[in-house]
């Protein structure tokens, strides 16, 4: 490890560091741009040349969460003075927040879409990983007739591109009343992720020595107890890695969500760009919506990072 480095190696190291930095910058630039835009005043969002230095404002986020309408005339001085700070930033942009008859602030569609995304992605991830774990355990530990064919069949469900099945799925969903429901998307995403989850978990299950459970069986435990007490904790790394992948897939899914949902169960991905449609697009609001949308995956991945570091190698360097 701590071998003496030659000057050649040291130079090579420096080149490598520069290369890594460059790649990192290239990859992070769009994310930086989203974050930066979501704090810009509207008039600086699309300037040429791009604005890099600016005074950050919270107004895109206020606009993101509220319903607004264009101001025909600037607000009166008392109106402006009576408004809370977050309403003033909207006034400054030439818009006002829509209120109902009782003066309650009207929410935009974003919070409910965001909540839909969370419900659908989390539920389908739990289902896909849970069922995948059990299925993988069965395939890994027991002699299943036609195991290879079954596994291939499971994988083959993933081979059709989403676009091909989208229209038939839409027609079927409409027939059974599943379109624009949470359950509909949950079933769809679970089915979509299941093959992936089974295959990934099978790899992890195969890595866990079967001697662990056999020792427990001989010691007087049932197969179920052995599974929950011994196998599941050992598979935690694999479960974490699989869960992250399934969650990202479900969270980011766009095509099905666009076709299958329009209001009640609509998720954030089709909603965010739909705001572009009316009037001039407010890129700062779209950027702030995207920024918040990126957070759950980032947080989820961050929380599971220790498991992922070992899990991402797909068992290759497990001790």
């Amino acid at each position, binding site marked *: 490890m701590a071998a003496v480095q030659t000057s050649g190696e040291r130079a090579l190291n420096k080149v490598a560091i520069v290369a890594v930095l460059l790649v990192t910058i290239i990859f992070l630039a769009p994310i930086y741009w989203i974050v930066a835009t979501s704090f810009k005043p509207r008039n600086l969002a699309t300037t040429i040349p791009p604005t890099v230095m600016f005074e950050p404002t919270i107004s895109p986020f206020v606009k993101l969460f509220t319903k607004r309408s264009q101001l025909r005339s600037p607000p009166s001085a008392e109106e402006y003075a009576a408004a809370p700070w977050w309403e003033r930033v909207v006034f400054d942009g030439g818009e006002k927040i829509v209120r109902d008859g009782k003066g309650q602030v009207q929410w935009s569609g974003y919070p409910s879409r965001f909540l839909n995304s969370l419900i659908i992605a989390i539920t389908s991830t739990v289902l896909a990983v849970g069922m995948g774990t059990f299925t993988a355990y069965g395939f890994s530990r027991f002699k299943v007739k036609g195991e290879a064919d079954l596994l291939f069949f499971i994988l083959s469900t993933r081979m059709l591109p989403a676009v091909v099945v989208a229209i038939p799925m839409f027609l079927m969903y409409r027939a059974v009343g599943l379109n624009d429901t949470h359950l509909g998307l949950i079933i769809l995403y679970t089915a979509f992720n299941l093959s992936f989850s089974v295959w990934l978990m099978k790899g992890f299950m195969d890595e866990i020595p079967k001697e*662990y459970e*056999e*020792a427990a*069986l*001989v*010691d*007087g*435990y*049932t197969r179920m107890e052995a599974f929950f007490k011994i196998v599941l904790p050992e598979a935690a790394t694999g479960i974490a890695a699989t869960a992250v992948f399934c969650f990202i897939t479900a969270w980011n899914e766009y095509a099905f969500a666009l076709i299958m949902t329009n209001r009640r169960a609509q998720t954030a991905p089709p909603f965010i760009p739909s705001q572009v449609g009316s009037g001039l697009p407010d890129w700062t609001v779209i950027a702030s919506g995207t920024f918040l949308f990126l957070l759950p995956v980032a947080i989820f991945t961050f929380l599971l990072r220790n498991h992922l570091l070992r899990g991402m190698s797909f068992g290759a360097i497990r001790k």
Partner: protein
Amino acid sequence: MAHIQLKNISKTFGNHTALTGLDLDIADGEFFVLLGETGAGKTTTLRLIAGLEKPSEGQVFIDGVDVADWGAAERDVALVLQQYSLYPRYTVRENLEFPLKPKIRRLPDAEIKDRVDRAARTLRIEHLLDRKTDRLSGGEMQRVSIGRAIVRKPRVFLMDEPLSALDAKLREALRTELKNLQIQLGATFLFVTHDQIEAMSMGDKVGVLNHGRIVQTGTPHEIYNNPRDTYVASFVGSPPMNLIDGKLVNGRAVMAPLNFELPFSGGAKAGGATDGRPLVFGIRPEDVYLESGAPVEARVHDVENHGVEKILTLRVGDATLRATVPARTDVAIEQAVRFAWNPDKVVLFDKGSGVSLRHAS
């Protein structure tokens, strides 16, 4: 403690036959060693007794009861494996407590603590109790594994090559410890190994397994001195028994390809050995000795110095023969020596079947 019996056991996996017509009888309180090469079916036998596999044919009896319908949990056996029988997420104490906590025979907490402490004291691992098992050395791990077995006071201990992953010094030490432990507990042990030294030094009885069949069962002494066939003769003993093709001519052993003769007085013991019948002569290296007036001349091909003794490889014509001689014997490679054997110790095998003539009758 228990008496284990296997009757006419066969086991096939798909089209691979692991065991055929296996009979085994392990007495209560016996240290039985199942000896065989990798793939001979030792582990399968053990797993059948543990209830982790079901026999394709035949029956397993524990204390005279057919246990065909008993699961692994009900058989009340303990299993010690070469590796992987400890849970890496648990401490040593938790590992030792684990076998005492299943629902079907959960013990009271005080009893668990007492048994764990007692086992830890017996195996001298008290100082390790709070350590995670992945921070143990190989020897310590195997001690804990054995501990996991003894806390439960099972009816039988099944050990699947528990010492094979350890280094030589440790293996020797644990061998003695394990044997002492068995005597102390008075327990029935079934110990599986491919190491014939372990089998010889630990077993009350040894069963030699080859290609899914028991070739010979007996005390280590019987197995060593009176092997049933050439397989046992060549498998047991280090270096193994010399096996030389030849025939008897007028009370003398005439070696066919080696072209030498030795006196053979064991005619009485030889049973059906008639003159001219093709035979294999088996002689242990320690029963071959060097002597200046001995009948056969050979060249020293190789010398292995083991400290207490030297193992010589002698060359006669283009064949070789091993001899164990005292370490003080002064020999050099390519030196010409003369040797003879102890004719009483020669075992005769039928050339065709490989079976010892003493066992054939």
